[in-house]
């Protein structure tokens, strides 16, 4: 099918199976860390965050088929712009609110 789209049309299920396998491994590690609590709390939280970032990349690449070569450039630009907005809003909100919290408590 010669429809060029944001979503690449896959002809084999291989990428989905690879994506599923990687996602299962990452999810099991994350849940295992939280369930057992073998590591200190801080370390566990950082590891869970890192695993989430890797899993998002796995999903983007194997399920949504985003890649830097074939995905239309404007889709990538929109994605990058959304990431900037998300960073500003989440980072900014947390920075402001926890700074405020800190100042009110002290």
């Amino acid at each position, binding site marked *: 099918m010669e429809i060029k789209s944001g979503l690449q049309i896959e002809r084999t299920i291989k990428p989905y199976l690879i994506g599923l396998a990687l996602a299962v491994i990452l999810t099991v590690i994350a*849940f295992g860390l939280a369930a057992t609590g073998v590591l200190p709390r801080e370390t566990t939280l950082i590891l869970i965050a890192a695993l989430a970032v890797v899993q998002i990349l796995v999903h983007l690449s194997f399920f949504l088929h985003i890649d830097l070569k074939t995905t239309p450039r404007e889709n990538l630009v929109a994605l990058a*712009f959304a990431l900037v907005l998300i960073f500003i*809003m989440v980072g900014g*909100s947390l920075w402001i609110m926890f700074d405020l919290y800190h100042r009110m408590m002290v």
Partner: protein
Amino acid sequence: MSSVASMTIGPRDAERYEEKDFGFWLYLMSDAVIFACLFATYLVMVGNAAGGPTPKDVFELDRAAAETALLLLSSTTFGVAAVALSAGDRGKVLLWLAITFLLGAGFIFLEIGEFTGMIAQGAGPDRSGFLSAFFTLVGTHGFHVSVGLVWIVVMFAQVFFKGLTAPVASRFMRLGLFWHFLDIIWVVIFSVVYLPGVL
């Protein structure tokens, strides 16, 4: 090649589908920004239990794991349906769409059970800032999945009645974007809400 590949699509149509996909992509990005705001709100509010139940009291890791499994599997089965679509195999598309629907419905079933259980034990959205933020964030995701389920039903009917025509295939791919996107949001939900909650 396949029946889909042999569908005649003029360059004009191809351009139109491309535009629609890009428009839908922009919608998804703005949806991601909405979820980001809800995540920020949740992180600010999570410590404010107002003397009521804390995340540790109300979250069940088993249920979150089951919900994760259902959604991840449904994303994969949708992928299988998409491959069947590119092969022009209508029967397989319908079969895997139906399986995807059942997995998604299972997710919603578990989530409704979780919400009603929490409300029954006095941990409803009106109890504290933490619970308001929790229900807003996870409920918004659940609402999206429910809309996705309705869309899957509509898609199933279109494939069944209209066959794998170019417009149907184009809509199918956008549904795929939506469905996989919701799975990504769920990854962030279990990493930000459930796993830190039970620690």
